[in-house]
């Protein structure tokens, strides 16, 4: 009884949030799963049980798994594969985009923070500049980047390609997001532009959070500046990296405005989020759209939940 009095109010205080999230997150996820397993595959609402939507997204059997994985990795679905080829290409794009965006923003952000860490004149100004792109909405960013990453050939060159030529860096010119192999990675550039500054701020705070005594102690032991970072500072940054990963990861999965603003609704730039939209709102294939949403959620859970649980646990141990 005393115990309840001890923790009861806390639970009570959090309960509105629990209820809201239960309804608006888990309730809607439940709705989504239900629709994905229904035969609601045209405009009229129907509710019979049907797994056909998933069948179009999964390998057609154990024998196809290897082929499926290879197709996702290369982005070139062979005709023999029974899965929806557009979906395979979407997954390929999502994979490229996520790797490029998450790795790019982490590396750029951490490097900038590293450069700024030990006192730089005009630090405030640099920080403000790097953070600025976050203020620009993805829709607006998409418009400008569409201009910059213009793939027009020859004398119609503009944007970065024109700049490269003027600077004598003509070998750098490329087709950007229309490139058959790395196009989706080019789409990640504007997202990196928008978020790197924020990651920089996170890491900078992380660097500064390392007690100076610790660094000093390591230096006294004769460690070089690089070794100080390697053995004292970096281990302290694990939690920062986790936050950064969560923030970048959830943006990466949901990104939609940016891709549509740059590439429109075309297969060449299509990602699962865009396909989901096309299926639900253009084709009115609600079940398949919901199936994609469900798979995205499962994918995220597999990637992130173990990490979250691990972190919460290790935090307890400390």
């Amino acid at each position: 009884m005393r115990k309840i009095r001890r923790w009861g109010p806390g639970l009570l205080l959090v309960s509105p949030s629990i209820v809201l999230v239960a309804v608006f997150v888990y309730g809607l996820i439940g709705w989504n799963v239900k629709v994905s397993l229904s035969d609601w595959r045209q405009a009229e609402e129907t509710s019979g049980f049907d797994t056909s939507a998933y069948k179009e997204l999964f390998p057609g059997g154990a024998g196809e798994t290897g082929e499926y994985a290879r197709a996702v990795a290369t982005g070139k679905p062979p005709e023999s594969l029974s899965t929806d080829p557009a979906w395979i290409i979407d997954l390929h794009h999502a994979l490229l985009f996520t790797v490029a965006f998450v790795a790019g923003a982490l590396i750029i952000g951490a490097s900038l923070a590293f450069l700024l860490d030990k006192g730089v004149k005009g630090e405030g100004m640099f920080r403000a500049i790097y953070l600025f792109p976050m203020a620009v909405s993805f829709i607006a960013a998409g418009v400008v980047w569409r201009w910059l990453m213009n793939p027009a050939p020859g004398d119609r060159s503009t944007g970065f390609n024109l700049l490269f030529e003027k600077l004598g860096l003509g070998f750098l010119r490329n087709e950007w997001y229309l490139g058959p192999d790395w196009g989706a990675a080019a789409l990640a550039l504007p997202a990196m532009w928008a978020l790197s500054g924020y990651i920089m701020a996170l890491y900078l705070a992380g660097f500064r959070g390392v007690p100076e005594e610790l660094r000093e102690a390591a230096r006294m032991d004769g460690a070089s500046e690089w070794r100080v970072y390697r053995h004292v500072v970096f281990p302290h940054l694990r939690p920062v990296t986790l936050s950064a990963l969560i923030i970048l990861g959830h943006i990466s999965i949901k990104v939609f405005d940016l891709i549509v603003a740059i590439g429109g609704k075309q297969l060449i730039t299509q990602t699962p989020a865009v396909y989901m939209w096309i299926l639900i709102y253009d084709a009115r294939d609600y079940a398949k759209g919901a199936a994609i949403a469900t798979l995205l959620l499962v994918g995220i859970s597999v990637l992130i939940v173990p990490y979250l649980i691990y972190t919460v646990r290790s935090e307890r141990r400390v």
Partner: protein
Amino acid sequence: MTSVAIEPTVRRRRRRQTQARALKYAALAFAAVLVLLPVYVLLVASFKSGGEADPSRAWALPRAWTLDAWREAWNGEQYGLLPYLVNSFKLVIPATLISTILGSLNGFVLSRWRFPGADLVFLFLLFGLFIPYQAVMIPLTQIFIDVDFPEGIPRLAFAHIVYGIPITTLIFRSYYATIPEDLIEAARMDRAGMLRTYWSVVLPISAPAFVVTAIWQFTSIWNDFLFAVFIVTDPASWPVTVALNNTTGSIVTPYNVQMAAALIASLPTLIVYILLGRYFMRGLMAGALKG
């Protein structure tokens, strides 16, 4: 003898230091230029006339500088953003405030006034961060209609508050985890209740986390497009992102107006960054968002 031997090494080290510093500044400046390139393109296009604002002349300065695009984007008859900016403020200020306060209370309880299963509840809330919004717009609006929720901005604000719970809770929970446990324990020893402890011990030292959370929420609510276009059916209540998107016509897109509109729509977030930037860094350093 010794001084003669040391001098070259010192000089060499100093020279190496100067070189390293020059390199560092060069790298920082280069990064700044890269970041500002798209901003430059935005800016010059917004001062061009309609015919001149075209991707093929992206780098060129305007032949004739004009404020026409800015005027049209500000309060022009067809694209004027002014009324929508007002809507956005009506949306963002209360939604940011409420979701920040909610996050603070949740974060406090889940880190410092824990109950059995608090970690599970935290994970339960956090997972909401990953829901793909596009997929749930239909049932979401259905719920609003079923419960007869007041239309327009209140609906939108409510949605942002609900879907903001995961991130705001995450930020505050991480931040409060850095408060020494003794402080809370002392309050408990004195039989201070939960709210009292929150009010007089925790809240006074929460400012950094408030700033970080508020900036994050302000930015994401201000820049949100998806919820706005789906939830708000009355054009008179649209926030600025929807109006900005409407400058992309289905037939003709006046690029100069669009660029000016994009800049105008980004200004409020930018001002928030400039005003609160210092506190933002301080907040991050004080432990918010460390996982």
